[in-house]
Protein backbone atom coordinates (compact mmCIF):
# COMPACT_ATOMS: atom_id res chain seq x y z
CA UNK A 1 0.00 0.00 0.00
CA UNK A 2 1.33 3.40 -1.02
CA UNK A 3 1.95 6.09 1.60
CA UNK A 4 -0.66 8.35 -0.01
CA UNK A 5 -3.41 5.72 0.09
CA UNK A 6 -2.46 4.76 3.64
CA UNK A 7 -2.61 8.39 4.82
CA UNK A 8 -6.00 8.85 3.22
CA UNK A 9 -7.43 5.76 4.95
CA UNK A 10 -5.84 6.59 8.29
CA UNK A 11 -6.91 10.25 8.32
CA UNK A 12 -10.55 9.11 7.90
CA UNK A 13 -10.14 6.93 11.00
CA UNK A 14 -8.18 9.39 13.15
CA UNK A 15 -11.17 10.93 14.95
CA UNK A 16 -12.73 7.59 15.77
CA UNK A 17 -9.44 6.09 16.95
CA UNK A 18 -8.55 9.12 19.06
CA UNK A 19 -11.95 9.26 20.77
CA UNK A 20 -11.77 5.54 21.46
CA UNK A 21 -8.25 5.86 22.93
CA UNK A 22 -9.25 8.87 25.01
CA UNK A 23 -12.27 7.00 26.32
CA UNK A 24 -10.20 3.99 27.28
CA UNK A 25 -7.22 5.89 28.70
CA UNK A 26 -9.10 8.95 30.02
CA UNK A 27 -6.07 11.02 29.10
CA UNK A 28 -5.78 13.14 25.97
CA UNK A 29 -1.94 13.16 25.87
CA UNK A 30 -1.71 9.38 26.17
CA UNK A 31 -4.49 9.05 23.61
CA UNK A 32 -2.42 11.10 21.14
CA UNK A 33 0.62 8.88 21.79
CA UNK A 34 -1.49 5.78 21.30
CA UNK A 35 -2.81 7.23 18.04
CA UNK A 36 0.72 7.69 16.72
CA UNK A 37 1.71 4.21 17.87
CA UNK A 38 -1.25 2.71 16.04
CA UNK A 39 -0.46 4.74 12.92
CA UNK A 40 3.09 3.33 12.86
CA UNK A 41 1.92 -0.18 13.64
CA UNK A 42 -0.60 -0.10 10.78
CA UNK A 43 2.03 1.38 8.45
CA UNK A 44 4.36 -1.49 9.28
CA UNK A 45 1.54 -3.92 8.49
CA UNK A 46 0.40 -2.06 5.37
CA UNK A 47 1.18 -5.01 3.09
CA UNK A 48 -1.49 -7.02 4.96
CA UNK A 49 -4.07 -4.21 5.01
CA UNK A 50 -5.17 -4.76 1.41
CA UNK A 51 -6.81 -8.04 2.40
CA UNK A 52 -8.50 -6.66 5.55
CA UNK A 53 -12.25 -6.55 4.93
CA UNK A 54 -13.24 -4.30 7.82
CA UNK A 55 -10.52 -1.68 8.08
CA UNK A 56 -12.34 0.37 10.75
CA UNK A 57 -12.80 -2.66 12.97
CA UNK A 58 -9.25 -3.84 12.44
CA UNK A 59 -7.76 -0.43 13.30
CA UNK A 60 -10.00 -0.11 16.37
CA UNK A 61 -8.89 -3.54 17.52
CA UNK A 62 -5.24 -2.56 17.14
CA UNK A 63 -5.99 0.61 19.12
CA UNK A 64 -7.75 -1.33 21.87
CA UNK A 65 -4.73 -3.63 22.25
CA UNK A 66 -2.40 -0.63 22.39
CA UNK A 67 -4.56 1.05 25.06
CA UNK A 68 -4.66 -2.16 27.11
CA UNK A 69 -0.83 -2.25 26.94
CA UNK A 70 -0.65 1.34 28.20
CA UNK A 71 -3.09 0.57 31.04
CA UNK A 72 -0.99 -2.49 31.95
CA UNK A 73 2.19 -0.41 31.96
CA UNK A 74 0.50 2.12 34.23
CA UNK A 75 -0.33 -0.62 36.71
CA UNK A 76 3.25 -1.88 36.62
CA UNK A 77 4.69 1.55 37.29
CA UNK A 78 1.90 2.23 39.84
CA UNK A 79 1.75 5.86 38.84
CA UNK A 80 -1.13 7.92 40.04
CA UNK A 81 -3.14 8.45 36.93
CA UNK A 82 -6.50 9.93 36.00
CA UNK A 83 -7.89 6.45 35.49
CA UNK A 84 -6.94 5.47 39.00
CA UNK A 85 -8.00 8.66 40.70
CA UNK A 86 -11.00 9.68 38.61
CA UNK A 87 -13.39 7.70 40.75
CA UNK A 88 -12.28 9.61 43.80
CA UNK A 89 -13.26 13.14 42.85
CA UNK A 90 -14.24 15.02 45.93
CA UNK A 91 -17.74 16.47 46.29
CA UNK A 92 -16.40 19.95 45.68
CA UNK A 93 -14.96 18.91 42.31
CA UNK A 94 -18.19 17.13 41.49
CA UNK A 95 -20.19 20.20 42.32
CA UNK A 96 -18.09 22.14 39.85
CA UNK A 97 -19.47 20.05 37.06
CA UNK A 98 -22.62 22.01 36.79
CA UNK A 99 -23.48 21.44 33.25
CA UNK A 100 -25.73 18.43 32.91
CA UNK A 101 -24.08 17.29 29.67
CA UNK A 102 -20.65 17.35 31.30
CA UNK A 103 -22.12 15.43 34.21
CA UNK A 104 -23.17 12.69 31.81
CA UNK A 105 -19.64 12.66 30.39
CA UNK A 106 -18.27 12.26 33.90
CA UNK A 107 -20.67 9.40 34.56
CA UNK A 108 -19.59 7.63 31.38
CA UNK A 109 -15.93 8.11 32.32
CA UNK A 110 -16.61 6.43 35.66
CA UNK A 111 -17.94 3.28 34.04
CA UNK A 112 -15.67 0.21 33.92
CA UNK A 113 -13.38 0.17 30.87
CA UNK A 114 -15.39 -2.48 29.02
CA UNK A 115 -18.76 -0.74 29.40
CA UNK A 116 -17.19 2.67 28.73
CA UNK A 117 -15.70 1.49 25.45
CA UNK A 118 -18.87 -0.29 24.34
CA UNK A 119 -21.24 2.60 25.07
CA UNK A 120 -18.99 5.06 23.21
CA UNK A 121 -18.49 2.78 20.23
CA UNK A 122 -22.26 2.41 19.98
CA UNK A 123 -23.58 5.83 20.95
CA UNK A 124 -20.76 8.07 19.71
CA UNK A 125 -19.29 6.14 16.79
CA UNK A 126 -22.61 4.45 15.90
CA UNK A 127 -21.04 1.05 15.28
CA UNK A 128 -22.98 -2.18 14.76
CA UNK A 129 -23.07 -4.74 17.58
CA UNK A 130 -21.20 -7.27 15.42
CA UNK A 131 -18.41 -4.76 14.78
CA UNK A 132 -18.10 -3.95 18.49
CA UNK A 133 -18.04 -7.67 19.29
CA UNK A 134 -15.14 -8.12 16.83
CA UNK A 135 -13.15 -5.21 18.29
CA UNK A 136 -13.75 -6.24 21.89
CA UNK A 137 -13.19 -9.92 21.08
CA UNK A 138 -16.46 -11.02 22.68
CA UNK A 139 -19.89 -12.33 21.69
CA UNK A 140 -22.64 -10.05 20.37
CA UNK A 141 -24.82 -11.10 23.28
CA UNK A 142 -22.13 -9.99 25.74
CA UNK A 143 -21.94 -6.64 23.95
CA UNK A 144 -25.72 -6.17 24.25
CA UNK A 145 -25.66 -7.06 27.95
CA UNK A 146 -22.77 -4.68 28.71
CA UNK A 147 -24.32 -1.90 26.64
CA UNK A 148 -27.61 -2.22 28.48
CA UNK A 149 -25.85 -2.22 31.84
CA UNK A 150 -23.83 0.87 30.96
CA UNK A 151 -26.88 2.81 29.78
CA UNK A 152 -28.95 1.76 32.79
CA UNK A 153 -26.16 2.79 35.19
CA UNK A 154 -26.02 6.28 33.72
CA UNK A 155 -29.78 6.59 33.65
CA UNK A 156 -30.01 5.57 37.32
CA UNK A 157 -27.23 7.99 38.27
CA UNK A 158 -28.90 10.87 36.42
CA UNK A 159 -32.23 10.14 38.04
CA UNK A 160 -30.58 9.88 41.48
CA UNK A 161 -28.74 13.14 41.01
CA UNK A 162 -31.87 14.92 39.84
CA UNK A 163 -33.76 13.46 42.76
CA UNK A 164 -31.05 14.70 45.13
CA UNK A 165 -31.15 18.16 43.53
CA UNK A 166 -34.91 18.32 43.83
CA UNK A 167 -34.71 17.28 47.47
CA UNK A 168 -32.18 20.04 48.16
CA UNK A 169 -34.31 22.66 46.46
CA UNK A 170 -37.37 21.42 48.32
CA UNK A 171 -35.51 21.56 51.66
CA UNK A 172 -34.23 25.06 50.93
CA UNK A 173 -37.73 26.19 50.09
CA UNK A 174 -39.06 24.62 53.29
CA UNK A 175 -36.38 26.37 55.35
CA UNK A 176 -37.12 29.65 53.67
Amino acid at each position, binding site marked *: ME*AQKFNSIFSAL*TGKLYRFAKSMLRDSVEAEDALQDVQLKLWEKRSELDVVENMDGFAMRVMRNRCLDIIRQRRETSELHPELISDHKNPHEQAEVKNM*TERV*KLLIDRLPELQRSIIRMRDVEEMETSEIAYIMDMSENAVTVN*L*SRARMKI*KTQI*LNELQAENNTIWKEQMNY
Partner: protein
Amino acid sequence: MERADELLSKYFGGTSTLSEEKKLKAYFNSEHVSENHVIYKPFFQQFTAEKEEIYPEVTPILRTEKPKNNRNRILIWIISGIAACLLAITTMRPLMQSEDYLIMKGKRIDNPELAQQIAIKKMEKSLSMVNRRLEPVEKLGEVETQLEKIEKISQIRQNVHNKLSKIK
Protein backbone atom coordinates in the same frame (compact mmCIF):
# COMPACT_ATOMS: atom_id res chain seq x y z
CA MET B 1 -42.47 11.61 18.97
CA GLU B 2 -45.04 8.87 19.27
CA ARG B 3 -42.82 5.89 19.89
CA ALA B 4 -40.33 7.68 22.19
CA ASP B 5 -41.16 5.63 25.29
CA GLU B 6 -41.03 2.36 23.41
CA LEU B 7 -37.71 3.29 21.76
CA LEU B 8 -36.27 4.48 25.08
CA SER B 9 -37.22 1.19 26.67
CA LYS B 10 -35.48 -0.71 23.87
CA TYR B 11 -32.52 1.66 24.06
CA PHE B 12 -31.89 1.05 27.76
CA GLY B 13 -32.41 -2.65 27.25
CA GLY B 14 -29.63 -2.58 24.64
CA THR B 15 -31.90 -4.04 21.98
CA SER B 16 -32.58 -0.95 19.83
CA THR B 17 -31.22 -0.83 16.30
CA LEU B 18 -28.89 1.87 15.01
CA SER B 19 -31.66 3.49 12.99
CA GLU B 20 -33.92 3.61 16.08
CA GLU B 21 -31.11 5.17 18.06
CA LYS B 22 -30.58 7.78 15.35
CA LYS B 23 -34.29 8.65 15.60
CA LEU B 24 -33.92 9.09 19.35
CA LYS B 25 -30.85 11.31 18.90
CA ALA B 26 -32.69 13.45 16.37
CA TYR B 27 -35.64 13.71 18.75
CA PHE B 28 -33.51 14.72 21.74
CA ASN B 29 -31.51 17.23 19.71
CA SER B 30 -34.72 18.89 18.53
CA GLU B 31 -36.73 21.52 20.38
CA HIS B 32 -39.82 19.36 20.64
CA VAL B 33 -38.88 17.10 23.52
CA SER B 34 -41.82 16.33 25.81
CA GLU B 35 -41.45 17.27 29.50
CA ASN B 36 -41.28 13.70 30.77
CA HIS B 37 -38.34 13.01 28.45
CA VAL B 38 -36.30 16.16 29.17
CA ILE B 39 -34.15 14.36 31.74
CA TYR B 40 -32.71 12.18 28.97
CA LYS B 41 -31.81 15.13 26.77
CA PRO B 42 -28.24 15.66 28.10
CA PHE B 43 -27.68 11.94 27.77
CA PHE B 44 -28.07 12.06 24.00
CA GLN B 45 -26.59 15.53 23.62
CA GLN B 46 -23.39 14.34 25.28
CA PHE B 47 -22.80 11.72 22.57
CA THR B 48 -23.30 14.31 19.83
CA ALA B 49 -20.93 16.71 21.60
CA GLU B 50 -18.28 14.00 21.97
CA LYS B 51 -18.40 13.24 18.28
CA GLU B 52 -17.85 16.91 17.46
CA GLU B 53 -14.81 17.11 19.73
CA ILE B 54 -11.67 18.31 17.94
CA TYR B 55 -9.07 15.61 17.61
CA PRO B 56 -5.35 16.02 16.92
CA GLU B 57 -4.09 15.84 13.39
CA VAL B 58 -1.62 13.07 12.81
CA THR B 59 1.49 13.74 10.76
CA PRO B 60 1.07 11.87 7.49
CA ILE B 61 3.64 9.27 6.58
CA LEU B 62 5.89 10.60 3.84
CA ARG B 63 8.27 7.68 3.67
CA THR B 64 8.45 6.12 0.25
CA GLU B 65 11.39 3.78 0.70
CA LYS B 66 10.74 0.24 1.73
CA PRO B 67 10.34 -0.21 5.49
CA LYS B 68 12.67 -2.16 7.73
CA ASN B 69 10.68 -5.38 7.68
CA ASN B 70 10.86 -5.42 3.86
CA ARG B 71 14.61 -5.01 4.04
CA ASN B 72 14.70 -7.88 6.49
CA ARG B 73 12.63 -9.93 4.07
CA ILE B 74 15.10 -9.22 1.25
CA LEU B 75 17.96 -10.16 3.55
CA ILE B 76 16.22 -13.42 4.39
CA TRP B 77 15.76 -14.09 0.65
CA ILE B 78 19.45 -13.46 -0.04
CA ILE B 79 20.56 -15.72 2.83
CA SER B 80 18.13 -18.41 1.67
CA GLY B 81 19.51 -18.11 -1.88
CA ILE B 82 23.09 -18.51 -0.72
CA ALA B 83 22.12 -21.49 1.44
CA ALA B 84 20.33 -23.09 -1.54
CA CYS B 85 23.42 -22.59 -3.75
CA LEU B 86 25.71 -24.12 -1.14
CA LEU B 87 23.37 -27.07 -0.77
CA ALA B 88 23.25 -27.53 -4.56
CA ILE B 89 27.06 -27.42 -4.84
CA THR B 90 27.47 -29.91 -1.99
CA THR B 91 24.95 -32.26 -3.59
CA MET B 92 26.31 -31.94 -7.16
CA ARG B 93 29.99 -32.26 -6.27
CA PRO B 94 30.11 -36.09 -6.09
CA LEU B 95 28.21 -36.23 -9.39
CA MET B 96 30.67 -33.81 -10.99
CA GLN B 97 33.58 -35.94 -9.71
CA SER B 98 32.03 -39.09 -11.19
CA GLU B 99 34.10 -38.64 -14.42
CA ASP B 100 37.28 -39.38 -12.46
CA TYR B 101 36.42 -42.89 -11.27
CA LEU B 102 35.95 -46.29 -12.83
CA ILE B 103 33.74 -49.16 -11.80
CA MET B 104 35.66 -52.40 -12.24
CA LYS B 105 33.84 -55.63 -11.46
CA GLY B 106 31.60 -53.69 -9.08
CA LYS B 107 34.53 -51.97 -7.40
CA ARG B 108 35.06 -48.21 -7.56
CA ILE B 109 38.55 -47.07 -8.60
CA ASP B 110 39.10 -43.39 -7.75
CA ASN B 111 42.79 -43.20 -8.80
CA PRO B 112 42.66 -41.85 -12.39
CA GLU B 113 46.14 -43.22 -13.36
CA LEU B 114 45.26 -46.71 -12.23
CA ALA B 115 41.95 -46.46 -14.06
CA GLN B 116 43.79 -45.37 -17.24
CA GLN B 117 46.25 -48.29 -16.99
CA ILE B 118 43.41 -50.74 -16.56
CA ALA B 119 41.58 -49.21 -19.52
CA ILE B 120 44.74 -49.46 -21.76
CA LYS B 121 45.28 -53.09 -20.75
CA LYS B 122 41.67 -53.83 -21.56
CA MET B 123 42.03 -52.21 -24.98
CA GLU B 124 45.29 -54.10 -25.72
CA LYS B 125 43.60 -57.35 -24.79
CA SER B 126 40.72 -56.54 -27.11
CA LEU B 127 43.12 -55.70 -29.98
CA SER B 128 45.04 -58.95 -29.57
CA MET B 129 41.76 -60.84 -29.67
CA VAL B 130 40.83 -59.07 -32.91
CA ASN B 131 44.27 -59.83 -34.39
CA ARG B 132 43.98 -63.47 -33.47
CA ARG B 133 40.67 -63.63 -35.26
CA LEU B 134 42.21 -62.08 -38.37
CA GLU B 135 45.05 -64.67 -38.60
CA PRO B 136 43.01 -67.24 -40.67
CA VAL B 137 42.02 -64.47 -43.06
CA GLU B 138 45.69 -63.62 -43.64
CA LYS B 139 46.44 -67.32 -44.38
CA LEU B 140 43.60 -67.37 -46.92
CA GLY B 141 45.38 -64.53 -48.71
CA GLU B 142 48.58 -66.55 -48.92
CA VAL B 143 46.66 -69.48 -50.39
CA GLU B 144 45.15 -67.12 -52.94
CA THR B 145 48.63 -65.90 -54.03
CA GLN B 146 49.83 -69.45 -54.35
CA LEU B 147 46.80 -70.34 -56.44
CA GLU B 148 47.41 -67.30 -58.63
CA LYS B 149 50.99 -68.56 -59.19
CA ILE B 150 49.66 -71.99 -60.17
CA GLU B 151 47.22 -70.37 -62.56
CA LYS B 152 50.06 -68.43 -64.22
CA ILE B 153 52.09 -71.64 -64.66
CA SER B 154 49.17 -73.33 -66.41
CA GLN B 155 48.81 -70.30 -68.68
CA ILE B 156 52.52 -70.45 -69.54
CA ARG B 157 52.16 -74.16 -70.26
CA GLN B 158 49.20 -73.43 -72.54
CA ASN B 159 51.15 -70.73 -74.39
CA VAL B 160 54.17 -73.04 -74.88
CA HIS B 161 51.89 -75.79 -76.09
CA ASN B 162 50.22 -73.40 -78.61
CA LYS B 163 53.58 -72.14 -79.94
CA LEU B 164 54.91 -75.70 -80.32
CA SER B 165 51.86 -76.75 -82.25
CA LYS B 166 52.30 -73.80 -84.65
CA ILE B 167 55.95 -74.72 -85.27
CA LYS B 168 54.97 -78.26 -86.07
